[in-house]
């Protein structure tokens, strides 16, 4: 009996180890970062949908209100801050856009392409505020994330 238990334990341990050996922690998820993935199951997702529709209908104020409501429900959503940043940029408020994009970066998962996109948004926003040096730095960060060589091995 004892040896069987030991055998089972050993098997379990080796299984776990095998699992560890073949699957090192991923640097980034295989799927691209999407809102439906980040906000899965949250009513914030439907508010995001309404915000997008309002934007398409030329109602930026309504879109903003939807996004603010969504943030009350899902306050740690990077995607919602990214949407707000986008909205501010198109509405001619680059300073607001920069703030939201930086907040989105702070909350962003380790997803290089997504983060690169946010740094590019920061760069554009800084350009429009006349901060070309800051824009350059943001662009460098984006490029670093986009370049496969730069990723840690």
């Amino acid at each position: 009996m004892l040896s069987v238990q030991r055998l089972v334990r050993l098997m379990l341990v080796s299984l776990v180890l095998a699992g560890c050996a073949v699957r090192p922690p991923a640097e980034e998820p295989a799927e691209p970062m999407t809102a439906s993935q980040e906000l899965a199951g949250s009513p914030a997702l439907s508010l995001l949908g309404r915000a997008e529709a309002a934007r398409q209908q030329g109602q930026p104020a309504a879109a903003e209100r939807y996004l603010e409501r969504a943030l009350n429900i899902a306050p740690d959503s990077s995607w919602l801050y990214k949407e707000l940043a986008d909205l501010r940029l198109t509405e001619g408020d680059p300073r607001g856009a920069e703030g939201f994009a930086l907040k989105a970066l702070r909350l962003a998962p380790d997803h290089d392409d997504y983060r690169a996109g946010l740094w590019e948004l920061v760069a554009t926003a800084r350009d429009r505020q006349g901060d070309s040096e800051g824009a350059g730095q943001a662009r460098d960060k984006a490029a670093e994330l986009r370049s496969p060589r730069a990723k840690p091995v």
Partner: protein
Amino acid sequence: MAKKTKKSPTRSRGQSNRKKKKPANKRRWFSWSLIGKLALVCLVLGAAGLAWLDALVRERFDSHVWQLPARVYARPVELYEGRVLSREDMLKLLELMRYRQDARASTPGSYAVQGNSLLVHTRGFSDSDGGEKPERIRLTLSGGQIRSLNGDDLARLEPLQIGSIHPQHAEDRVLVPLEKVPPLLVEMLIATEDQGFYDHYGISLRGLARAMLANIKAGGLVQGGSTLTQQLVKNFWLTSERTLSRKLMEMPMAILLELHYSKEEILEAYLNEVYLGQDGARAIHGMGLGAQFLFGRPLEELEPHQLATLVALLKGPSWYDPRKHPERSLERRNTVLKVALDEGALSKADYDKYSSRPLEVVPRGASALYAFPAFIDLVRRQLARDYPPEVLSDEGLHIHSTLDVLAQLAAEGALRDHLNRRDPDDSKKLNGAVVVVAPAQGDVLALVSNRDSREAGFNRALDAQRPIGSLVKPAVVLSAVSQPKQWSLATQVEDGPIQVKLPNGDVWAPQNFDKQSRGAMPMVDVLAQSRNQATARLGLDVGLKQVAGTLKTLGVQRNIPLYPSILLGSLELTPFEVAMLYQPLSTGGFSTRLRSITDVLDKAGQPLARYPVSTDEVVDAGPAFLTQWAMQQVVEEGTARAARRHLPADLKVAGKTGTSDDFRDAWFAGFSANHLAVVWVGRDDNRNAGITGSSGALPVWAQLMGKLPQRSLSQTPPAGVEWVWMHPDGRRVSAEGCGEARRYPMLEASIPEDSDGCGAVKKTGKGIKGWFKGLFD
């Protein structure tokens, strides 16, 4: 008496003199040509007067019919599956919003309890995202959460009206268009006040005669002869003085009104204009506001006996005031119901049913309107920056505010309970203020400025400027850890006597609260134990300029004098300013302007302006995380650990106690991920209040935070910060289980190369490299 007897002969002499002269004048007065001329003048004057009256009538009626003060609403309650909301709180909300119980929830503003679930018929509202239509929703509440919501994944209750913005002696009104006025109200109104309304031209001789007859019969004044149109003229254009000139103007104006406008327009104006009473300085005009004022509900939702009470008021708003004179009011109400029965507006069955109902007037002051004066004051100040006073008092704006009714009630309750415990006698010397903010969006959720929260007056939350004491210390820590090559939270700081010679020759020698010095200790303990001498030493090493700069960065707008005493909180701020100062600390370095308003809509519900969220990164992620973690230790093991009793064991919160000299001010400012609350307790006369941050303010904060749904502060360090076991000397890394080694979040630049040689020393590497390294180590 003596004067009188002396004077009278003189007067009679004068009179007799005049009498003598009169006959001579009399002859000339009766000259026919003069009469002709006078008649002409009168005719011209009369025509001019009529034209003037006509212009007056049309101008006021057309252009600016009603003064509509801006109305302020709380944030609409968002309902969705998984939202933390207890059944008790939901019912409290429905009660505040005057929902009535109705087995089928058949009309807006009603609800039914059905076992575990609630059927709620919402009222609908306008918002800049389009708002909501009235709808029936079924929600199941259990375990303090919404378990299910029928159909949609989201619903909103209409926002509770919490006040209106009007000048001190202005009119207040809730405009109700005629099509929304219950027809029964119109029928009762016409039956009791002006039966010939649809037939006359503004004045009614028949009505006058009938009134006179009725009055003679009754032996007193039971009916007035004025038509509704005349009453409107009185309400609309004329003062309430009973002068002859007023009477003379009333009739032609009534006729002119009828000439220009339809009966419907006149009726609508009457219903919205009529004066119904007084609420302090606020005049209650119109049936819409009357319904709110007496019954706490929209006019559309009133039942027949309540409508009759409103009509009963017309005969004398103060004489028939149902709160002051309930018996008189009830009698008059039943007369109105009887007239409605006689005129066929009400069935016999309904008459019997409703005339036996009590008045059902809500107690004065029970309404949510004017219940939150401190918050409304904040809204008013923020609006005043953008809108001139006449726009706010006249144009009927809808102001959507950030007030969270449940947070507000929790804050009021916490302050009241604590002060009643500490300061129970009638003298009530202690008072306080509470500010609650949702830090990420900067929304002010609650504002309390008085232990008697309904009392307006001195707004302590906004205007009580007091020394912040140890609340300043996190800024000293932040300034230090922002220079990671020199300082980390593990750095040893000497808690010992310190003396600084000031430019004026004085010597500044701060003492610790316990009058003792504890020697060297890690920086995190300096904060957690709120050591004054160690903080002073650290602050002087970091530099007064740096600390002042940090305070400015965090949001202090006042001038900060560069005295050493600022390191221990000689800086004076209001509770609201403290909330501004702590807001970036609570969000990991993102500064967000505090707002009390989200949207402004016009009177038709069309969006006019938004007050959007905006945020700036003012502190880098790393130092912000370290400071926040150090502030968590204040609650975990420091001066605020008593708060833990009120909070869930696994909830991570942070904060700081503050006490000013001579125990005048007690402060606590602290936060979870979703609520930042600042509490101040002290005396208005600024005397020794015998309280500390821990004893005077922390209990309020803990009770309040314990009542609200909370989320923990993130324990995941940002890029560039690692968890490191440090040797107690703060200069060498160590390992878990090694003597007195402690684990700290460390900025990479401050992790020492040296190790104390104990255990398997390893920096926690990130990513694949670290993982492989870990595998082989």
